[in-house]
């Protein structure tokens, strides 16, 4: 395997008394796509949100174990959470553009991180929208409200917004579950392109999607990591009986 960018070791997470992640250990390879699969409620979103510490916002969450991002512990008290989230971006299941113009949506992150000057921002906005494969569709309406875009366009705008702060990792939580097949395949193509520059971790309920785009796949069940390996191997010769049941559809 290639060098890893995130190393998760013995991660456990509780919502109050309910344990949602149980001793999860895995390495996420740099500039690759890692797919997280598993039945509803098995902890995929929880795991994803742990990586950029979005779980901090939920009261009563307790975490043990370690997550190393580029060799530093993300739970260390010295870690700058905002900077961590800048480097580990996130795309949510439901497209959630801000109720502002398309331009302002993309410029929001860079502005927040102190980028000033119109030329510079124009540049970032165009590059991000191009990278998210939506530039041609919106270049004539950058000042229009983003809520006027279609669902698929909104999701790509959200990807552009995430890219605008130059993250190293992109976490995507079922980014295509609310989209039609055409928008879905656009985002899948996009993910494959983005892999050249970014590390992508994607949650999906769609087995074909995981098989099509990911390099490695992790199968979760009831908060446990059941199996983790190269996607082709996991789908063709699963080692665990539960994995086999799940991917062949005899499960959940």
């Amino acid at each position: 395997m290639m060098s890893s960018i995130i190393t998760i070791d013995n991660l456990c997470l509780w919502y109050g008394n309910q344990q949602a992640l149980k001793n999860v250990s895995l390495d996420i390879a740099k500039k690759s796509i890692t797919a997280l699969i598993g039945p509803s409620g098995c902890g995929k979103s929880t795991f994803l949100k742990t990586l950029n510490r979005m779980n901090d916002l939920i009261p009563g969450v307790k975490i043990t174990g370690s997550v190393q991002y580029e060799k530093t512990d993300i739970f260390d008290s010295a870690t700058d959470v905002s900077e961590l989230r800048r480097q580990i971006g996130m795309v949510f299941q439901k497209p959630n553009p801000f109720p502002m113009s398309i331009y302002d949506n993309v410029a929001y992150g860079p502005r927040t991180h102190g980028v000033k000057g119109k030329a510079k921002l124009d540049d970032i906005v165009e590059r991000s929208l191009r990278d998210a494969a939506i530039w041609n569709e919106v270049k004539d309406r950058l000042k229009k409200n983003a809520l006027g875009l279609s669902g698929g366009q909104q999701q790509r705008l959200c990807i552009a917004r995430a890219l605008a702060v130059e993250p190293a990792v992109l976490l995507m939580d079922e980014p295509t579950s609310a989209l039609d097949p055409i928008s879905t395949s656009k985002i899948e193509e996009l993910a494959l392109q983005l892999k050249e520059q970014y590390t992508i971790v994607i949650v999906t309920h769609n087995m074909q999607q995981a098989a099509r785009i990911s390099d490695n796949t992790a199968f979760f069940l009831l908060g446990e990591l059941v199996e983790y390996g190269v996607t082709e191997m996991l789908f063709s010769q699963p080692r665990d009986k539960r994995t086999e049941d799940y991917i062949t559809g005899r499960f959940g």
Partner: protein
Amino acid sequence: MKGKKKSFETAVHGVFLLLGLITVCCVLLITVYLIISGIPAIREIGLIKFLFGKTWASTAAEPSYGILSFILTSVYGTAGAIVIGVPIGFMTAVYLAKVASPRVKTVMESAVSLLAGIPSVVYGLVGMLILVPAIRKLFHVPDGASLFAAIIVLSIMILPSIIKVSVTALEAVPKEYEDASLALGATPVETYFKVSVPAAKSGIAAAVVLGVGRAIGEAMAVMMVSGNAANMPSLFQSVRFLTTAVASEMSYSGGLQRQALFSIALVLFLFIMLINATLNFFLKRTKER
């Protein structure tokens, strides 16, 4: 049997309609009455002279009925209350809606409700006994009963409506917006002010307009702390508002003076109508989203 049931339904509907019409009739009645009784004096005095005349001397041998001083006092008083009350109310609302722990929030929100429930005469009394003497000492003015005292009292009185409406607007901001902002590496405070507040802006604007309405319509409390002399407004001088102008002379007025008081009430009424229209505009915009 069926016919009986149906006629009962019709009767109930009729009763509801009748009760609903009471409100509508009251509004219509007041509007028509104000217009009918407000117009004659304006006609006799002349609209320009009435609205822009600087002297109000209703009991002088040669009476003069200019209400510019009242209009300006009401406008300045309201503006002053907004300038002081809105930032405080707005910040409190952001704190309550986004930052405060549930316990602090419960306590503070019931305090705000209590503030809203205090009768205006009590505000006037406390203002008279504490605020007015304090202003006299603090600013070394001969009399603390002034426009300034009225502004302070009004800005406290409008706090509850500003806070409540703003909190509601801020709480209605979808959490997804805030999550998106935080996930981009914005801090919580940056998120409140750059995402939550802009997303709630029409609701917050409605809160401000509601505050304006409260302030401009208040009579009792301002009468008790503003000295009630018909001067052109000045911060540390005794002044008279549109509301207090009507209230203070009505009991002993007669003839043209009395009619002029109705005209003042009409002007006040038009101000309130304008404010209500603005409020409806903002509320509609909030709903549409």
